[in-house]
């Protein structure tokens, strides 16, 4: 079960083409999924809702990051509008649920589909422009969507631009505790993760990669640029919409402040730190970006209180700025030192242990 290979010894074509060439890989996947499913049990026993909420937030962020990575990492189309697309999904779900009494699963699907539509619309310029120009176009998309949602009372619901929704409910089962909501998010996350992995392995994913590597060459070998670029935008925004809708149901409020420009950049940072063009990398990035401020909080507070005896209130302001500063510094550090991100580091580790202990 835990045997590793020490070389490539395939004797059949099927063996060579298999998704998991070793039982180890397949079993690792199973174990990780099982652990994720069982995770709330010890937390529930310890009654640690805070830790549960952190894990849920990471899973939520990972959904959005995977979507963005499909667009940016696999297809090579830059988007600085992921936050705004999540906003569209979030508000769609909130409006459907709070005003029309739709069930949450419908809200999530509708949020995804509406966002896919909006994303495709803003993806149309990608047919003519690329690189820097596309980055600016999606930046405009972010600012325009933000403005429209804030300034159209029918969407934003008036005061503070926030809409409240009820707890999601399925067949009389109410997702009313932190632990129950975790399962809701986990199911969607697993669907999103394995869906994306299968997508990028298949025909569509290969077309995306061809477009990223050289779009004109891709067109010449028969990839329909128009269709696949828009498809990439649609899929990516669908993910964003689903993530945004889930956010809304998780927090039970749709508020634009959760999806502003900085959030879009945070998502970009996730996939860059995690690794462009890697589904697993997006998850790593989400974990890293979400855990980083928490870890920083803990260290700064413990150092300032323990060593200097300064109470928390006095360092709170410094902390916020320090976070901003270190966030930027981390992005620069990763880009200049390890441009392929955590996913590549993970590959190094795996490669090392592949032949361990006889790595001659």
């Amino acid at each position, binding site marked *: 079960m835990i045997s590793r290979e020490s070389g490539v010894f395939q004797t059949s074509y099927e063996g060579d083409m298999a998704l998991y060439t070793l039982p180890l890989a397949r079993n690792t996947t199973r174990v990780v999924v099982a652990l994720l499913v069982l995770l709330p049990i010890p937390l529930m026993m310890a009654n640690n809702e805070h830790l549960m909420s952190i894990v849920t937030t990471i899973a939520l962020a990972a959904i959005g990051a995977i979507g963005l990575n499909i667009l*940016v990492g696999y297809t*090579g189309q*830059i988007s600085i509008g992921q936050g705004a697309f999540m906003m569209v999904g979030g508000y769609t779900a909130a409006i459907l649920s709070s005003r029309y009494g739709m069930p949450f699963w419908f809200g999530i699907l509708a949020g995804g589909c509406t966002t896919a539509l909006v994303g495709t619309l*803003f993806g*149309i*310029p990608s047919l*003519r*422009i690329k*690189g*820097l*120009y596309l*980055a*600016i*176009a999606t*930046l*405009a*998309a972010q*600012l*325009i969507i933000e*403005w429209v949602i804030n*300034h159209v009372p029918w969407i934003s619901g008036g005061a503070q631009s926030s809409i409240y929704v009820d707890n999601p409910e399925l067949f009389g089962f109410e997702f009313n505790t932190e632990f129950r909501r975790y399962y809701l998010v986990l199911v969607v996350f697993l669907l999103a993760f394995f869906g994306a992995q299968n997508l990028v392995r298949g025909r569509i994913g290969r077309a995306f990669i061809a477009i990223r590597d*050289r779009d*004109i*060459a891709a067109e*010449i070998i028969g990839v329909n640029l128009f269709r696949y670029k828009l498809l990439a935008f649609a899929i990516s925004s669908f993910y964003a919409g689903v993530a945004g809708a889930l956010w809304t149901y998780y927090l039970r409020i749709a508020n634009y402040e959760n999806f502003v420009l900085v959030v879009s*950049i945070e998502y*970009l*940072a996730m996939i*860059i730190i995690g690794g*462009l063009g890697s589904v697993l990398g997006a998850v790593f990035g989400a974990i890293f970006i979400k855990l980083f401020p928490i870890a920083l909080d803990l260290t700064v507070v413990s150092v300032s209180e323990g060593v200097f005896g300064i109470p928390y209130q006095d360092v709170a*302001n*410094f902390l916020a*700025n*320090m*976070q*901003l*500063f*270190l*966030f*930027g*510094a*981390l*992005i*620069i550090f990763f*880009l*200049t030192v390890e*441009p392929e991100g955590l996913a590549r580091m993970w590959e190094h580790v795996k490669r090392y242990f592949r032949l361990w202990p006889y790595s001659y």
Partner: protein
Amino acid sequence: MEFLFDLTANGLLVGLMYSLVALGFVLIYKATSVINFAQGDLLMFAGYAAAVMTGGHGMPLWAMVLVLCAGMVVLGFVLERGILRPMVGQPVVSVIMVTIGLSFVLQGLVTIIWGASTRELALPVRFEPYIVGPVYISPINLVAAVIAILFLIGFGVFFTRSRLGVAMRAVADDQQASMVVGIKVPRVFALSWAIAGLAAAAGGIIWGNQIGVDTFLALVGLKVFPVVILGGLDSIGGAIIGGLLMGVIESLAAGYLDPLVGGGTKDFIPYVLMILVLFIRPYGFFGHETIERV
């Protein structure tokens, strides 16, 4: 009709200030093909430094300007050497991201060092507006416009007359060919960042004086994207005309549309316009159309 004149004149003056900031963008893009998302933050940094020097330390204006310009030029060199040089040959998204990272670093740094409260950046200019026929012009706007024009003329002369300026244009045109004729391309890259720092210093003083110095000053950088897209990312003339145009459009939108929809169109119209330009003429009015070959 008088209202229209007033709006247009003020729009033009504000537009010149946009042009000044846009200039920093265009310079860096032209020479190094990097979009500098941190230009607004460089400007904010310069504004803070200026406000601290005149307000906190009571430096005379001329000394402050000298120190600030020198400091920003050095900062430009350092940034190019430390952050941008390793990014040569990386995908576009990484290069964009590194400048975004830089903008966070600058914002964090500024507030850690100098605090987040709004500071004033006073210039010795009288307050009452000049009245030319139907048009009210505040003197500070006029000063800003004059500085912007001086800068723009200075750059114009630099790029056409000086050896370095011509070398920079050559690099912008074709990096390999300019290496062949003996231009030191890395040095030109560094220089363009230094000049962008200089433009940020000028922008920081002017904008800081106009809207006050705090972290919101960095948002001027976002406003400049429509300007450079409209004019063409690699055209200095385009930056000037784009800036003027955007200033007028903003001013007219604020004057005529705001009463209809309840405010805020200033932050909306430029981006819609920008998207339209990207649809129709992505390389802007004066930019070069790139032709791709496999």
